[in-house]
């Protein structure tokens, strides 16, 4: 099974703020991915896509061509892109398609999300009284983690410094200005211990991937990248998630723990086999905690790893090589696919100014979001 699904084309509309609609960015990314794959829309025989706030992906057929292909809309919060990819992976493995597209795009308003309590299954009182902010959850999760495992504020800041540095080298990134540790620490305190520059912003952008059966991949692409696993998990009992008015004292694992373990098992590889890693960095603390949740270190080891530069582009384990969510922003539907796009770019050696200097043969991606979902992939040449 391991050779069965290949990524033959990758396309991205730069992230940031743009005049065009989310759907137009999606179509742009789709055309770029097909050009990269050397295929036409008529070659694509299944598509999955979604956005959180920019419309139904399947209406894109009127732009790309009414070929009659099955196009399924995917809506799965922050894992929308990851879920589209898993659906495409499964469709190819099931023999339902030879060439498949996974696409994600989005366009969000400025500032923190303003969620609706009812659609998240919580009482109106929760929103009324000022508890319904994702930023508070992130602040409280890392606050407790720092207390338990001895992570310093300097380390929190260094994650942001690294990601903005990586973003400054990436022409598709949104935030391209490098920041110093002092600038990060001295920026506005949004939700203690997290400052403004430790948070990513909701943004805009699109990513499309063309996948194909492994045995036909080289007909399209001289440098196919293989998707060794693609896994999604929802939250187990006892995980700590956004918009929880209560937690059990009987603490459990994050959904990322199960998703990452399953992705490695399916791929027949482990965390120590990975050359580069993309993890969800909604804020600096998330990257730190996800390093451990995904199995790349023990709780608390991040302090030395990050302080010593091990996760920098030239380090032992480069993390968020394109600048992550911090430098790219978070268009929800596209975010998980951006990580796979970046991994494919690095595996092909095509990342240009932000190419990791060491040889790259394997890559891992991890997306995480509300209401407690995680999607992971393992990729290799």
């Amino acid at each position: 099974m391991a050779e069965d699904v290949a990524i033959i084309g990758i396309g991205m509309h730069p992230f940031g703020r743009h005049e065009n609609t989310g759907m137009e960015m999606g179509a742009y990314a789709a055309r770029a991915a097909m050009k990269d794959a050397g295929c036409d829309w008529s070659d694509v025989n299944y598509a999955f896509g979604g956005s959180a706030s920019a419309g139904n992906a399947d209406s894109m057929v009127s732009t790309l061509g009414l070929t009659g292909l099955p196009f399924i809309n995917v809506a799965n919060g922050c894992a929308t892109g990851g879920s589209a990819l898993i659906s495409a992976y499964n469709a190819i493995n099931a023999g339902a398609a030879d060439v498949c597209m996974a696409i994600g795009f989005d366009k969000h308003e400025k500032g923190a999300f303003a969620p609706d309590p009812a659609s998240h299954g919580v009482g109106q009182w929760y929103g009324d009284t000022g508890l319904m902010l994702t930023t508070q959850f992130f602040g409280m999760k890392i606050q407790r983690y720092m207390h338990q495992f001895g992570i310093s504020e300097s380390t929190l800041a260094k994650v942001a410094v690294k990601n903005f540095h990586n973003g400054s080298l990436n022409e598709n990134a949104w935030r391209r200005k490098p920041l110093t540790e002092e600038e990060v620490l001295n920026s506005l305190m949004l939700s203690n211990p997290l400052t403004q520059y430790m948070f990513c912003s909701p943004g805009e952008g699109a990513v499309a991937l063309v996948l194909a059966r492994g045995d036909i991949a080289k007909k399209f692409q001289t440098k196919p990248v293989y998707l060794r696993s693609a896994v999604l998990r929802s939250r187990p009992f006892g995980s700590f998630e956004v918009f929880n008015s209560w937690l059990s004292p009987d603490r459990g694992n994050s959904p990322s723990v199960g998703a990452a373990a399953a992705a490695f098992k399916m791929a027949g590889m482990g965390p120590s086999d990975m050359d580069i890693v993309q993890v969800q960095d909604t804020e600096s603390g998330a990257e730190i905690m996800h390093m451990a949740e995904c199995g790349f270190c023990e709780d608390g080891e991040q302090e030395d790893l990050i302080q010593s530069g091990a996760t920098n582009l030239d380090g032992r384990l480069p993390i968020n090589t394109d600048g992550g969510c911090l430098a790219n922003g978070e268009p929800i539907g596209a975010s998980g696919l951006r990580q796979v796009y970046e991994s494919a770019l690095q595996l092909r050696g095509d990342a240009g100014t932000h190419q990791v200097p060491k040889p790259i043969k394997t890559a891992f991606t991890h997306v995480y979001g509300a209401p407690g979902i995680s999607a992971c992939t393992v990729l290799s040449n």
Partner: protein
Amino acid sequence: MTTQIPVAEELFTWPSDSPQLIGTRFPESGVTTFPQSKSCPKSGSENGERVLLPRIGTLWSWTVQGFLPKSPPYAGKETAKTFKPYGVGYIQLGNEVIVESRLTTAEASELKIGMDMELVVIPYSTDDDGNELITYAFAPVKK
């Protein structure tokens, strides 16, 4: 005289001199939810019992809301100019449940994980008739 109106019925006992949060305990799984819940998220059981939660607990984690939340859903009437940051935390009530709550202090120097906290009731907004809208919060226990 203004009336105090709780943000929701059955969230905490009111009126009361010593209000308590109201949860649901599921005897089969040992899980206690807050607020009340029809089914247990661990076992799926629908055999829950209404339970009054302890008024005193310990701070499990905390943050400070540093910017004015978007309305909706936030029902506070501050503007960006009048907004004052407020504390938010999780308070562990014995071994029963950890509840999320506003805190009465927004001073980072006054908040330490593990410190004792007690339940109080605070205003969070007013309605069009000038009534005070109230919710529960936790305050550091005075030594």
